[in-house]
């Protein structure tokens, strides 16, 4: 029972680490690049876009999509590592 508990605790700890890293990026691209540093980034230009404006209306959204898929990949790997990847009929509580 104890090892099972330790296994679950270790799984949860790694999960929290992933979530914190991914949410930091989530914060940086939207609230950082798209809002707080928008004025600064607007000095740079890619194509017809000012960079800060691009983050606010395009870039942040692309990063959001990528973040979720990275999360899916990381969690599937983590499930396997800790043995939570078996499909069981009994998936609810």
């Amino acid at each position: 029972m104890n090892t099972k508990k330790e296994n679950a605790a270790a799984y949860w700890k790694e999960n929290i680490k992933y979530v914190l890293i991914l949410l930091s990026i989530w914060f940086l691209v939207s609230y950082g690049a798209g809002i707080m540093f928008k004025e600064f980034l607007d000095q740079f230009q890619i194509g017809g876009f000012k960079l800060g404006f691009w983050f606010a209306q395009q870039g942040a959204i692309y990063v959001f999509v990528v973040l979720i898929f990275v999360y899916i990949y990381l969690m599937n790997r983590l499930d396997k590592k800790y043995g939570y990847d078996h499909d069981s009929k009994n998936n609810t509580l």
Partner: protein
Amino acid sequence: MSVQTWTYILVGITFALYIGIAIWSRASSTKDFYVAGGHVSPWANGMATAADWMSAASFISMAGIIAFAGYDGSVYLMGWTGGYVLLALLLAPYLRKFGKFTVPDFIGERYYSDKARIVAVVCALLVSFTYVAGQMRGVGVVFSRFLEVDINTGVIIGMVIVLFYAVLGGMKGITYTQVAQYCVLIFAFMVPAIFISIQMTGNPIPQLGMGSTIHDSSGTFLIDKLNGLSTELGFTEYTSGTKSTLDIFAITLALMVGTAGLPHVIVRFFTVEKVKDARKSAGIALFLIAILYTTAPAVAVFAKTNLLNTVSNQPYLEMPPWFKNWEDTGLLVHNDKNKDGIIQYVADVDQNELTVDRDIMVLANPEIANLPAWVIALVAAGGLAAALSTAAGLLLVISSSISHDLIKSVINPKISEKGELRAARISATVAVIIAGYFGINPPGFVAAVVALAFGLAAASFFPAIVLGIFYKKMNKEGAIAGMVVGISLMVFYILKFKFGVFDGGTSAISRLNKDWWFGISPEGFGAVAMAVNFVVALVVNRFTPPPSEEIQELVERIRLPNNAGEAGGH
């Protein structure tokens, strides 16, 4: 063929499709009715979530709002997509593992209290009703403009269709009609956008066209041209905002957190089979949503440039036919103040002669760009798909809140499966009728209130659910106090600054703007109310007894994707 014939054909085909799906996917059990049997594939759920999420506001209004707000419009783009990151990382997998039917189910069991459940039901009803009235109105507007039927008749037709598949099929019917509606709405949004992008920039991808040079010999970037036109007429530069950075920050946060706390979005994740599928469908949903959300700002730039080019300083008598059509609806108003027969569209209120309703930017865009009749008709079908799919999802939340969370869980736990299914259908019917009533007699503030539904969701559900998962010692006293204080504060702020209730009515609103707390608008106040909810919940939690061992073990089980290795089932 005329636009109207095309519209009848396309709307007719899509409606027949929705009804066909409804008949094919009738619900036979409460599990079918609430969570589509729990067997929806990640792709189907992703598409259904995207359609559920993208409402008349996303489809019809958003590009128009951005066209007139420029950079300030970014709050909607980031706010309404970034919430999915929170949903995928903080909520969806765990709520799926919990594996019940509704959000109040989770709140009620996690906080071992019927009181908590009832608070959650009240919040869910408040959020969903404010939101659904706007959808029925959207249905009415599309009908009246494109099919030239009376707005009220339009609302009633919409009600009958939704009633048919929501009542018959429950979540199962709604899920598969939403899959079809996603296809219709994304096609309808993208086709005109691609056409216009090619016309204006020669680039078929609107996201890139937005940053390209104009398709003439000048070599000017489209956005630079729009910035120039805007400042010439006295408006703010398109790529700069007028809102304060703090307010932009707060509104974006309120919309993100509100998105993650909306019950009709959350319940979609109860319909898939596994925790893994819940994560995957959140990713698919955001990908599908992002297709529209990254196109909308491009459409905004195209439409605004086109509009300024077509109307500004042009003689009124030479306006194209669409101008007259939209004047008839009252959404476009020209008042020749200086009687020179030329349209002056400028920032200065005293000299400006043209009032443009933001909603027509998407609806009129294909006409402004001279696109073929079938494309214009397609936009009508897409707008209807967007409004109907969201309305259906909301109605399901309303009906399950009543039949499951109130009747089955609190009032009459002994009710039979059949009885509960009947109760669910009756409450869905009543909900449609109430929503239709608000669609026909819109309380003048519908548009304003829809945006505020996010503040309400942010201020109530999000903290309670996140704490319930990530802090296992969180108790019921803290959660209830947090939700009650959060949502009350939000309602108070709306009443005070959006309706002027305490200062002599709506006429006082503009005068009160300078009194906003920390300079944060009512739209962004959800972020503050959410923070207050968190603080109150944690403080009350400190001084009240922790939850029982069983509840803490329940939380530990919610955190694991399956029960592998656990002895015996739960």
